[in-house]
């Protein structure tokens, strides 16, 4: 598949998107995906070559990651299969600390000689850079775990499901959309398996098997006469699950307002495509919003992206410290605010949790990419900023001596660094349903799904759209709206958080291709929440005439 096409296809239902061209690896057959890969005893022996070579050359620390990355992507439009892609990428990345400085090198020559050479390069880079290094690397202590393993708890391995079954499902969803008023529909299925082996001079040998899946579509309805077109994105979430996510179990469905069908741990793509087509068509004649202040009732598949941008990113410690200043930016959530211990990030009911363990989430692993056992921790508790996201070489800068376990690299070929864990809004403790959110709103908007998103480089000012908007008047939904976007300031927005549904409405949103770093790397991360109300938020009208 060409990179250009990937951009086009991957952009269909994008949340926070970057193009993983480097991850594509080599095209292989579907059957070859089932090849078990290298034996674990051989991996251990090869990893030891890297660790021993590094130590011999004077490194004070070394880790080796032997990775096999398998991807299967299926793309269709209307009644056509556009592409089926199977790729495999295999190699080793070696990271060392020498003279108090990081060095990294990687190779796809996973032999004693290849590994030795890459390790020598990593040490040489570290020593060369140490001449301009001002502060030596300081690593937080980590336990030696010995030989351990972890697997995403899947029920159906996507690699064992025939391609024809996947193609049939996408084409059925497309047909349902076309039957219900859509003029065009693009759909795609992204499936990923990371087989990662980690070893470090701290004495850990960690074997992990990580699975992720993302079904998505864009349905478009057209009015040629008036030259209008409107789209609706899928209400699926990318998940840290196997192919069982596609089962569409009734037990995982929720009835949403305005005819919405909503999904937790199981997705009914055909049903969602049916609703999507009707909503895309309805949007062609929807009322254009009147700009002003509204109470917003935000559905989890929408709110997840707002959490990602306005909580997840600003609380990355490397951003706070300035390491990302030249790319994504820095953060308003500076250390002095955190040290105050009373910085009101949000209202009293706002509790935001970082988590690398939540089953079904994209970020869930047993150990991070520098061998730290994963955990859950508070970022904001009762509205107060309490912590950041940090890894082994950073955490001492905030006076802590235990890494948070959120180090990640997109492949064996790239150096690992701090990446966002799952960041989620805790469900409300009082029993509230979505109707309870809507019933006491005089003038408001219910916003669902992914739309346009933009936020400044310190994460103050943001603007978000959605994929469907419904007007709320005097406690009830009265009709569809168009041209809606809300603009706010992170702290002001989270302090306007008025009411949160209980856990029966809790669902995950996900970003499959979140981008960060130079050269850029992707990672996948989930954001859970229940439907939540924010009062008196500024809404603009985005309609224009050209």
């Amino acid at each position, binding site marked *: 598949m060409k990179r250009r096409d990937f951009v086009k296809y991957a952009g269909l239902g994008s949340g926070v998107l970057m193009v993983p061209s480097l991850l594509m690896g080599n095209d292989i057959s579907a059957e070859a995906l089932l090849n078990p890969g290298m034996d674990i005893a051989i991996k251990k022996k090869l990893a030891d070559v890297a660790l021993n070579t590094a130590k011999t050359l004077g490194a004070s620390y070394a880790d080796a990651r032997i990775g096999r990355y398998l991807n299967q992507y299926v793309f269709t439009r209307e009644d056509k299969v556009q592409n089926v892609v199977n790729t495999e990428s295999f190699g080793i990345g070696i990271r060392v600390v020498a003279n108090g400085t990081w060095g990294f090198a990687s190779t796809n020559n996973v032999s004693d000689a290849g590994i030795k050479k890459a390790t020598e390069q990593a040490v040489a880079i570290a020593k060369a850079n140490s001449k301009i290094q001002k502060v030596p690397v300081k690593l937080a202590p980590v336990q030696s775990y010995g030989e351990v393993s972890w697997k995403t708890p899947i029920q159906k391995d996507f690699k064992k499901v025939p391609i024809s079954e996947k193609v049939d499902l996408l084409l059925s969803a497309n047909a349902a959309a076309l039957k219900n008023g859509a003029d065009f529909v693009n759909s795609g299925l992204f499936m990923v398996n990371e087989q990662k082996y980690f070893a470090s001079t701290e004495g850990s040998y960690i074997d992990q098997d990580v699975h992720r899946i993302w079904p998505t579509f864009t349905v478009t309805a057209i009015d*040629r006469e008036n030259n209008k077109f409107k*789209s609706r994105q899928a209400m699926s979430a990318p998940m840290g699950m196997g192919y069982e996510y596609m089962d569409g179990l009734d037990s995982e469905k929720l009835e949403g307002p305005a005819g919405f069908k909503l999904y937790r741990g199981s997705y009914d793509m055909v049903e969602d495509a049916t609703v999507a087509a009707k909503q895309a068509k309805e949007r062609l004649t929807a009322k254009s919003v009147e700009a002003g202040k509204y109470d917003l009732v935000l559905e989890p598949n929408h709110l997840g992206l707002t959490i990602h941008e306005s909580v997840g990113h600003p609380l990355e410690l490397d951003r706070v410290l300035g390491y990302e200043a*030249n790319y994504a930016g820095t953060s308003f959530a500076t250390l002095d605010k955190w040290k105050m211990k009373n910085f009101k990030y949000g209202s009293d009911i706002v509790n935001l949790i970082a988590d690398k363990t939540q089953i079904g989430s994209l970020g869930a692993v047993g150990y991070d990419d520098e061998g730290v056992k994963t955990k859950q921790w508070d970022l904001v508790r009762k509205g107060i900023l309490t912590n950041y996201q940090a890894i082994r070489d950073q955490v001492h800068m905030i006076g802590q001596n235990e890494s948070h376990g959120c180090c990640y690299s997109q492949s064996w070929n790239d150096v690992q660094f701090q990446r966002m864990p799952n960041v989620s809004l805790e469900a409300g403790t009082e029993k509230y349903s979505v109707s309870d959110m809507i019933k006491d709103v005089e003038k408001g908007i219910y916003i669902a799904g992914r739309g346009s998103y*933009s936020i400044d480089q310190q994460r103050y000012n943001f603007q978000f759209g959605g994929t469907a908007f419904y007007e709320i008047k005097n406690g009830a939904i009265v009709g569809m709206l168009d*041209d809606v976007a809300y603009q706010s300031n992170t702290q002001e927005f989270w302090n306007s958080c008025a009411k949160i549904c209980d856990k029966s409405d809790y669902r995950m949103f996900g970003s499959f291709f979140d981008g960060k770093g130079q050269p850029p790397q992707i990672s996948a991360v989930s954001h859970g929440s229940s439907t939540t109300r924010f009062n008196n938020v500024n809404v603009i009208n985005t309609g224009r005439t050209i």
Partner: protein
Amino acid sequence: MAIYTKEEAKQIMEKALSFSTADACVINISGSESGNIRYARNTVSTSGHRSNQTLSVQSSFGKKSGTATIDEFDDESLKKVVRRAEELAKLSPENPEFMAPLAPQKYDEYLTFKETTANITPEYRAGVASSSIEPAAAKDITAAGFFNDSSGFSALLNSKGLFAYNKSTNASFTVTMRSNDGTGSGWVTRDFNDVNKFDASEASKVAIDKATMSREAKAIEPGKYTVILEPAASVGLLGNMASAFNARTADEGRSFMSKEGGGTKLGERIVDERVNIWSDPLHPEVPTSTWNSAGQPLKKTTWLENGIVKNLAYSRYWAKEKGVDPVPSPRGFIMQGGDASLEDLIKGTKKGILVTRLWYIRNVDPQTLLYTGLTRDGTFYIENGKIKYPVKNFRFNESPVIMLNNLEKLGKQVRINGNLIPYMKIRDFTFTSLSDAV
């Protein structure tokens, strides 16, 4: 070494092709060597070197195609990759949009490779970092930057005998300079095929000056303002507009190029008549490959002439459907400029805002090409022909189509990300809110 000569590349591909038993076969080979250095907090953070080579085979039986890729080029590997592509093709569903490979074409000789860039050393990269860090530290400023250089080749051979080869180099640099009191930020970007044209100290000074000048910005009301957009500020919006010059989505009624009742805006004036945009693979300042991945020759193509849409891109399939000649999408674009320098544009402005760059640009409405995003790293208020003071950053909601209808004056062209874009003065640019971000 992952850079093969024309002859070496051809030999490997011919060998692979000799193993093909498919109805049609297309072979691509490419390789690159790249190095980078990254720094932040006035010290080096990471650096790396990457070497890649890959050969891909697309085999087709009728309208069924399969692609396989390999990074080893010995005979056995080549046999294996061809066999795998053929197996995949037989298992694949038919693609009704399949197009048979092109017959041999004539290509212009490429201008994209410069030996100087291919010879960059780790010491050179460290020197780039020092050229930023030292002057920054001396002025109570913190530098965070990234320099990346690459050299590579790509070649194409198909079963109809078409052969194409290109070699290219690129060096790109960005640096963000932040004042240590946290109130000022400046940024600069540079990119060249020939690294001899790059001066890290000059570029770093631009960013340092902006960081100093932008300290303690004042808040002014958002609204519609006359703006002077530096080329780095308009490239994002213009690039998004250029990529929407696509015939298929326009014909399908889902593009800003679609017309009421059907058809496209081809031949219509959509922006100010002083706007001329074209692509030219042989422009000495912004050369690109002279062929694309389908093997089509890339020639000078006019997209907007005197504000009128002259061409939309047609893929080979869509051109066949519509009974027209294919028009390949451009690799980069060139917008005609004028003689005015930035200083001239500022001098001629009574009230306005100078914008260094626009950031986090996202599409809000594909129907009108409405985009949102923010100013960043140096935004200044102009009054009576002079920069008066720095202003806080704004969020904008604007369409490049509306922007180019509100054109006041064009200035000199500058190379940005492989494109050539002029300084532009635009009236009524829409800022919708203020940001506290520095």
